[in-house]
C-alpha cells in the first residue's frame, strides 16, 4: 500500500492544528487505517472546520482503532463525516463515548434522522426509544442501558447543534430537544424505578418538570429540577376481586412511602455514576418547603401548603411547571390545583416587597472569585435576563394571560408583542440570551460537565471561539464578543424595566415601545410608587422637550428610577429630584455631575427617596448637591476648618443679622454633609454624634462672637462670657433632634461697670440671632437646667453660681452637672467654672445612702409624671421604661457614687462613663451591654426618625409606612419596618429589668400597683434630665 499524499506541517497550522508534528503523525496513522485511498488534503479540510482539530483528529484515530469499520465513515467526504468530526471536535466527552460505543458512530451518518427536514426528535418517539431501551431490565443493567440510549440521542442533538450554520438561531430548538430528552430519560427512569420498587403497582406516580426542564429550555448538563407526585391508585371494589387486599395498600401513608422509594430510585437512576457515567442530578428542592420538606406529600397537603405557607417566589417557580414523566393525569390534577394560584399569588400581600427583593436577588449570590467568568450569574449574565423577563411577567401577567409562557424566549416575545418592552430592546435581549446560552452549551458540551463559567485558559477559549465560527485569534475574539454582550445585557436589564415608562410619557420615536398608560401605572405601582399618576407627571416634566437637560435626564432616569424604587418613598424621591433639577438643571455642573461622577446620581436618588430631612435641607440650598460629586464631600471637615469657616462667616458681615445668617448657612451645609454621609453609610454613629456636637460648639462660639461684637462694639468688654453645654450637648452625644441645653455664665472684668447688663444683652442677641427662620433648622437653646430653672435669671455671674450651689443646690442639680461642659467663650472662665462644679458632681467619698434614696425616689416619681399625656411608657424612647433616661440615671448614679475613686467616670459622656463603670467593676459587662443596646438603639431610632420624617419621633410610629421608612434608614432590608416597634420594646424590656436591679436595687416585683397615676407636672425636680 502506498503512502497517501500528506499535507505539509505549515498547511496543518493554517488548518487550525496547534501541534502540527503530532497532527502529522496522527493523520498518517488515520489515513493508513482507512479503506481505499482517502485524500489527506480533503480530510484535513474537514478537520479544519471543527472546533478543535487536534482533539477531533485524536478522537478519530481512537475511534477507528476501537472499530476499524468506522474508518469507512471518515474516508468519504460528506455530511456524515462532517457531523462525526464536528462532534469529535466539539466534545471530548462524546468522543470518549463513541470510542466506547463505536456502533453509535453510524447513527450520525443520517443528517435528517427524524424524517425529512427534521433535525430534532419529537418528544413521543424519543420517549418510546428510551423506555424501550430499558424494557425488562433492572438494576445496574437498566441504568447502563439508559445511559447508553440517552447518549445516543444526545449525539444526534449535539451533531445537529455543532454543524448548524447559525447555532444562535438554532438555540431554542436545541434547548427544547434537550428538555425533551431529559423528560424521556425521566420516563425511562420511572419505568426502572417502578420495576424495582415493591408496591409500586398500587400507586400513581408522576414527575413534574420545573426550572429549565419545565420551561423546555434545558442545558446540555445541569441539574434537572423536578417535583414528585404520588397518589394511591383508586381501586374499584365492584370489579376488582382483590379490592380488600388492595385497599390495605392504597392508604395514603403507604402510597407516600412507596412514592418516596420511587422518587429516591429515580434520583439515583439518573444521578449515580456507573461504568457508563451518569446523566445529571435530579433536584427536587423546588418542592414545598424545599430541602426541609418531605420528598413527597399528598395532593391535599400540596394544596394546603400553597394556600397557606408558600412564598411569592415559589409561585413564580410554578410558572414553569409541566408534566414530564409518569402518570399524566396525576400531573394534570396537580397542575389544575396550583396553576390558578400562580397568578392569584401576585395579588397577595407584600407584592411590591417581593418584586423588589427579586430585583436584588438578580445581583446577589455570586461567589466573588467566580464573578468575572460567570455566564449565568453576576451582572449581565443569563440570570439577569431570565429574572427581568419573569419579573415583567409577574407584574403584567396578572392582567394579560398572553404572558403566561414558561419559556424565557417565548415570554420575551409575548412581552414584546404586548408592548411591554421596546421592540429593539426585546430583540437585543433575545440575541444576548441566545448567544450566552450557546456559549454555555458549548462550554458544557466539551466535557459534559455542569458549568456556567467562561473558560479561562486560552486553549479552551480558542475551542469555544472556533466552535462559534471564529477563526484566527478565536480566543480573544470570543471573549470580546462575550464582554460586549454582557455590557449590553446589563444596560438592557436596566432599560427593559424603566425605559418603557419613559416612553409612555415622553412620546419618543415612533419605533419605541407603546406601553399603555395603564400598564405604565401598573409597573410604577409594582416598583413601589404609591401615586403612579403623579410619578408619570414628574417623568413627563423631567423628560419633556429637546433641551440638553431633558436629553440627559431621559438618559439618566431609567437608571435612577430603579434607585428611587429602592428607597422607602420613591414618590417623594422623584418629586424632590424634579424640584432640584428645576432649580439646578441649567447650571453647568449639575447634570454633568450626575452623568459623570460615578456614584453621585445613585446616592442622590437614594437620599431623596429615603429622607425628608435631607430633602428639606437640599431644597433650602440645592447647590449643596455638589457635595455628592466631591471626592471628600461626605467626610466631616476637621475642627480647625469648621472653626475658620464659622469665624470667617461671622466676620464677613458687618450687620449682626447677616452674620448670624452666615454662620447658620455654614451649619446648614455641614449638617447636610453629615446627613448625607449618614444616609449613605459613610459615618458611624459615635462619629456622627461627635460631629454634630462639634458643629453645635462651633456655632455657639461664632454666635457668641457676633453677639459680643454687636453689643460691645470696639469698646472694652465689661464681662467675660461662657456658654456651658449640658445634657446631650455637654455629653458630646448630640443627635439631629437634640436641643442644645445650655447655661450662661459671665464674670465682670475688673473695674468695669454694668457687667450683668452687658452679659444679659449679649445672650439676648445670641438667642435672637439663632432663633427664627434661617438657612438651617433652628437649634433650640434650652436653659432650663440653670439654677432655679425657669424662674431664675438667664445669665448669672460665676460668683452667683458659686453662692447658689453652695447654699441651695438640690441633688438633681449635681446630677445635671455631670454632663456640664464649657462649649464657647472665655477659656479662663471655663476653667474656673469647672473648678467650681467638679466637687459638686464628683463629690469626695461619693454620696451617702440618703442621697441615693432621694435620687431613687425622684426618679420613681418622674417615671409617672414626666411622660407626656397619652404616651405609652412601653414605647417612649426617652422617658419610657428602659428608655434613654433610665440608662442615663443608672450611669449618673454610678458616677455620683464612684467618680471620686475612678477617674474614668469623670466624663460627661453617657457611654464613656458606662464603659468606665464596667472597667472599674461597678457594672457587669452583661448588664452594660443591655443598657448600651437600649441607649444606642433609642438614639439611633430618634435620629432615623428625624431623617425620615424631618422631625423628631418619640416612639416607633405605629403607621407601618413610617416604621418602614425609619427601618430603611437603619439599613434594614425592605419589608421589616413592622419589626422595629417589637425590637424596641424588647430592648427596652430587657433594659428595664437591668435598670430596676441597678437603680432601685432589685426587681420591684409585680406587687406594685399597675395603674400608675400620671398626675400634673410636679415641682422643679422633673427638669433634672435632658436626653
Amino acid at each position, binding site marked *: 500500500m502506498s503512502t497517501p499524499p500528506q499535507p505539509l506541517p505549515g498547511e496543518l497550522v493554517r488548518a487550525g492544528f496547534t501541534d502540527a508534528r503530532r497532527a502529522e503523525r496522527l493523520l498518517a496513522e488515520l489515513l493508513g487505517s482507512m479503506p481505499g485511498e482517502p485524500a489527506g488534503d480533503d480530510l484535513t479540510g474537514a478537520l479544519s472546520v471543527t472546533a478543535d482539530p487536534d482533539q477531533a483528529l485524536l478522537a478519530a484515530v481512537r475511534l477507528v482503532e476501537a472499530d476499524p469499520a468506522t474508518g469507512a465513515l471518515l474516508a468519504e467526504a460528506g455530511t456524515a463525516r462532517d457531523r462525526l468530526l464536528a462532534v469529535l471536535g466539539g466534545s471530548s466527552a462524546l468522543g470518549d463515548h463513541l470510542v466506547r460505543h463505536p456502533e453509535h458512530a453510524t447513527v450520525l451518518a443520517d443528517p435528517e434522522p427524524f424524517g425529512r427536514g427534521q433535525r430534532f426528535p419529537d418528544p413521543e418517539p424519543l420517549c418510546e426509544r428510551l423506555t424501550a431501551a430499558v424494557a425488562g431490565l433492572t438494576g445496574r443493567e437498566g441504568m447502563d442501558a439508559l445511559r447508553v440510549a440517552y447518549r445516543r440521542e444526545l449525539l444526534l442533538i449535539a451533531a445537529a447543534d455543532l454543524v448548524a450554520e447559525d447555532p444562535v438561531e438554532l438555540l431554542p430548538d436545541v434547548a427544547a430537544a434537550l428538555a425533551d430528552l431529559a423528560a424521556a430519560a425521566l420516563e425511562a427512569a420511572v419505568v426502572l424505578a417502578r420495576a424495582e420498587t415493591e408496591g409500586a403497582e398500587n400507586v400513581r406516580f408522576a414527575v413534574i418538570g420545573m426550572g429549565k426542564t419545565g420551561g423546555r429550555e434545558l442545558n446540555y448538563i445541569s441539574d434537572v429540577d423536578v417535583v414528585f407526585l404520588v397518589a394511591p391508585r383508586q381501586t374499584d371494589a365492584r370489579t376488582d376481586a382483590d379490592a380488600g387486599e388492595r385497599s390495605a395498600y392504597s392508604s395514603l401513608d403507604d402510597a407516600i412511602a412507596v412514592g418516596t422509594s420511587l422518587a429516591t430510585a429515580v434520583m439515583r437512576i439518573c444521578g449515580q455514576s456507573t461504568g457508563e457515567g451518569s446523566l445529571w442530578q435530579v433536584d427536587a428542592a423546588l418542592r414545598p418547603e424545599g430541602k426541609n*420538606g418531605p420528598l*413527597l406529600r399528598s395532593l391535599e397537603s400540596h394544596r394546603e401548603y400553597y394556600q397557606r405557607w408558600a412564598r411569592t417566589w415559589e409561585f413564580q417557580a410554578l410558572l414553569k411547571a409541566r408534566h414530564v414523566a409518569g402518570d399524566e393525569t396525576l400531573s394534570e390534577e396537580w397542575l389544575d390545583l396550583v396553576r390558578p394560584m400562580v397568578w392569584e399569588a401576585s395579588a397577595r400581600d407584600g407584592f411590591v416587597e417581593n418584586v423588589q427583593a427579586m430585583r436584588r436577588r438578580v445581583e446577589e449570590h455570586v461567589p466573588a472569585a467566580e464573578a468575572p467568568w460567570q455566564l449565568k450569574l453576576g451582572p449581565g449574565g443569563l440570570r439577569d435576563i431570565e429574572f427581568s423577563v419573569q419579573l415583567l411577567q409577574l407584574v403584567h401577567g396578572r392582567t394579560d394571560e398572553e404572558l403566561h409562557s414558561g419559556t424565557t424566549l417565548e415570554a420575551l416575545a409575548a412581552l414584546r408583542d404586548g408592548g411591554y418592552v421596546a421592540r429593539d430592546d426585546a430583540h437585543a435581549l433575545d440575541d444576548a440570551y441566545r448567544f450566552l446560552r450557546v456559549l454555555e452549551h458549548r462550554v458544557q458540551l466539551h466535557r459534559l460537565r455542569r458549568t456556567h463559567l467562561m473558560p479561562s485558559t486560552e486553549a479552551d477559549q480558542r475551542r469555544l471561539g472556533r466552535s462559534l465560527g471564529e477563526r484566527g485569534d478565536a480566543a480573544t475574539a470570543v471573549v470580546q464578543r462575550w464582554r460586549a454582550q454582557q455590557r449590553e445585557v446589563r444596560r438592557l436589564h436596566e432599560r427593559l424595566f424603566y425605559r418603557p415608562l419613559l416612553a409612555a410619557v415622553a412620546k419618543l420615536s415612533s419605533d419605541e415601545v407603546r406601553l399603555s398608560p395603564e400598564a405604565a401605572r401598573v409597573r410604577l405601582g409594582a416598583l413601589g410608587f404609591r401615586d403612579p399618576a403623579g410619578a408619570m407627571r414628574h417623568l413627563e416634566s423631567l423628560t419633556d422637550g429637546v433641551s440638553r437637560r431633558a436629553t440627559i435626564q431621559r438618559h439618566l432616569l431609567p437608571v435612577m428610577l430603579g434607585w428611587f424604587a429602592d428607597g422607602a418613598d420613591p414618590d417623594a424621591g422623584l418629586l424632590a429630584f424634579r424640584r432640584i433639577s428645576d432649580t439646578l438643571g441649567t447650571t453647568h455642573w449639575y447634570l454633568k455631575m450626575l452623568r459623570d461622577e460615578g456614584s453621585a446620581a445613585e446616592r442622590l436618588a437614594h437620599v431623596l427617596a429615603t429622607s425628608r430631612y435631607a430633602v428639606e435641607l437640599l431644597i433650602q440650598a440645592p447647590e449643596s448637591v455638589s457635595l455628592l460629586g466631591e471626592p471628600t464631600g461626605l467626610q466631616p471637615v476637621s475642627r480647625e476648618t469648621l472653626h475658620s469657616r464659622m469665624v470667617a462667616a461671622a466676620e464677613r458681615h458687618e450687620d449682626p443679622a447677616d452674620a448670624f445668617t452666615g454662620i447658620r448657612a455654614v451649619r446648614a451645609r455641614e449638617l447636610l454633609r453629615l446627613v448625607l454621609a449618614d444616609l449613605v453609610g459613610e459615618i458611624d454613629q459615635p462619629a456622627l454624634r461627635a460631629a454634630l456636637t462639634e458643629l453645635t460648639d462651633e456655632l455657639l462660639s461664632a454666635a457668641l462672637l457676633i453677639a459680643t461684637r454687636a453689643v460691645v462694639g470696639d469698646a472694652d468688654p465689661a464681662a467675660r462670657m461662657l456658654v456651658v453645654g449640658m445634657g446631650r450637648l455637654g455629653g458630646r452625644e448630640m443627635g439631629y433632634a437634640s436641643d442644645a441645653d445650655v447655661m450662661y455664665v459671665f464674670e465682670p472684668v475688673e473695674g468695669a461697670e454694668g457687667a450683668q447688663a452687658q452679659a444679659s444683652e449679649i445672650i439676648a442677641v445670641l438667642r435672637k440671632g439663632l432663633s427664627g427662620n434661617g438657612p438651617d433648622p433652628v437649634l433650640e437653646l434650652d436653659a432650663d437646667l440653670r439654677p432655679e430653672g425657669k424662674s431664675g435669671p438667664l445669665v448669672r455671674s460665676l460668683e452667683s453660681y458659686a453662692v447658689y450651689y453652695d447654699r441651695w443646690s438640690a441633688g438633681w442639680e449635681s446630677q445635671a452637672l455631670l454632663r456640664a461642659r464649657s462649649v464657647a467663650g472665655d477659656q479662663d472662665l471655663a476653667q474656673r467654672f469647672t473648678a467650681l462644679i467638679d466637687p459638686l458632681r464628683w463629690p469626695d467619698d461619693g454620696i451617702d445612702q440618703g442621697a441615693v434614696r432621694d435620687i431613687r425616689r425622684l426618679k420613681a416619681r418622674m417615671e409617672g409624671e414626666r411622660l407626656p399625656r397619652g404616651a*405609652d411608657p412601653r414605647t417612649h424612647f426617652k422617658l419610657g421604661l428602659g428608655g434613654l433616661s433610665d440608662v442615663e440615671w443608672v450611669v449618673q448614679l454610678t458616677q455620683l457614687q464612684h467618680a471620686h475613686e475612678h477617674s474614668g467616670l469623670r466624663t460627661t459622656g453617657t457611654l464613656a462613663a458606662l464603659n468606665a463603670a464596667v472597667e472599674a467593676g461597678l457594672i457587669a459587662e452583661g448588664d452594660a451591654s443591655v443598657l448600651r443596646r437600649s441607649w444606642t438603639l433609642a438614639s439611633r431610632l430618634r435620629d432615623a426618625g428625624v431623617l425620615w420624617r424631618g422631625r423628631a419621633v418619640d416612639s416607633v410610629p405605629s403607621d407601618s409606612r413610617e416604621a418602614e421608612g425609619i427601618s430603611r434608614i437603619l439599613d434594614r432590608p425592605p419589608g421589616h419596618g413592622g419589626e422595629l*416597634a417589637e425590637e424596641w420594646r424588647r430592648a427596652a424590656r430587657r433594659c428595664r429589668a437591668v435598670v430596676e436591679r441597678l437603680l432601685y436595687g432589685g426587681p420591684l416585683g409585680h406587687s406594685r400597683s399597675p395603674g400608675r397615676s400620671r398626675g400634673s407636672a410636679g415641682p422643679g425636680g422633673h427638669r433634672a434630665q435632658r436626653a
Partner: protein
Amino acid sequence: MDRQQEYVLRTIEERDIRFVRLWFTDVLGALKSVAVAPAELEQAFAEGIGFDGSAIEGFTRVYEADMIVQPDASTFTVIPWRGDNPGTARMFCDIRMPDGSPAGSDSRNVLRRALDSAAEDGFTFYTHPEIEFYLFKEPYDASVGPIPIDQAGYFDHVARGDGHDFRRAAITMLEKMGISVEYSHHEGGPGQNEIDLRYADALSMADNIMTFRTVVREVALQHGALASFMPKPLADHPGSAMHTHVSLFEGDKNAFYEPTASYELSQTGRRFTAGVLRHAREITAVTNQWVNSYKRIWGGGEAPAHVCWGHNNRSALVRVPMYSIGKGHSRRIEIRSMDSACNPYLSFALILAAGLKGVREGYELPPEAEDDVWALTDGERRAMGIDELPQSLSEAIQVMESSELVAETLGETVFDFFLRNKRQEWYDYRAQVTPFELDRYLVRL
C-alpha cells in the same frame, strides 16, 4: 377576591343569611363579636371593618386604637342555634392595623406567627384537646352555690340523664358547624362532662375551641343548665382540664413517630417534650391563666403540678399515651396542664414554641417518672430533679415576666397586655376576704 370569599357570598345569598357575626378573641381568650349585614361583607373581605382595637386588650384597656377586623373566609359556618330561616353565620377574623399589617395584639396572629416559624422548619402542628366542663342547674343562685345537674361519676351512664341529652345535642350542633367530635362521656365530678375534638391543625383547633365553648353554653341553656369552663368550680371534685394531645407533622408524616424508638417516640418527639417540660413554668401563666386555675393544679389527683413526663402516668405533666403498633399517624404526646378556660391561641403558640425550642436546640429528655408523683415526698422529688409548677397566679406571673421565650412568642405587645391583665387580677384577688378566712378567723380571732 378569592374563591373562598366568593363561595361565602354565594352561600349567604342561597341560604338567606341575614346576619354575619365576625368573631375574634381578646388576649384572655374571651370571644368578641361584631355583626354585619351581608351587604357589607364584600367590603369586609376587601378592606376589613374598623373597630376600637383596645377591645382585645382584656380588662385593662388603656388607649383606644383604630384597628380592622378582617374575616377569614375559610372559617365560614352557619350558626345552627339561631334558627334556619333567616339564618346567621359566623367567621373568625384576623385583626389588622389600618394599613393592613397584622395587629401585634391579636391572639390569632400570635398563633399564626408561631405556626409560620414551625413551617420554616417544615413542621405543621396538630392538636387534639379533651375539653372538660361542668353543668350546673340554671339559674345559678350565688347564695346557694353551684348545684351540679347530676351526681354521677367517671363514664357513668345516667339513666334519662339530662347530661346525656345535652351531650347528644351539643355534639350534633358541633358537627353541624363542621367540628368533628371524637369522643364524649361523663367525667369524674358530678355534672362534669368531657368532649374530645378530633385532631386538627392548631389554628383550626383554636378556632374550634372558641366555637365549642359557645356551642356548649348555648346548648346547655336550651337544656336549662349552665355550662361552666371554670377550672375548679367545686373544691371537693376534680377541676376541668383541657388535656391536649399534640404532634408535629412533616408533610404527611408524623414527626413524633419512630417505629423502633422507645414508646415509638422519635428524637423530634423526645426533644419537643423536653422543650415543653423545660419551659413549663414560664408558660403556666398563659396555659393556666386564672387565680382559680391554681386550685385545680394543686388539687391533687390527676392534676399535674409537677414538671415531669411519664408513659401512662396520669400525675405527670406530659404523658406519652398508649400506642397501637403501626399506627404511626397517631403518635403524640399529651399535655395535661392546660385548663378549659385558657386562651387556646396563646396556649398552643407557647406549647409549640417551647417544644420547637427543644427540637431546635436538641434538648435532652429527662428520665421518665414512673410513680405517682403526688405520692413522693418533696425530698424525693427534689432528688429526682422534678420541679413544680407555680403555686399561684402571682408566682406564675413572676416566672413569665423574665421569660424571653414567652415574650418572643407572644410578641412584646401581647406579652405586656397579658401581664398587665394578670397583675390586675391578682391585685383584685388579693384584696378579697374569702369565706375561708371568715370561717377560720372571724370567730376565733
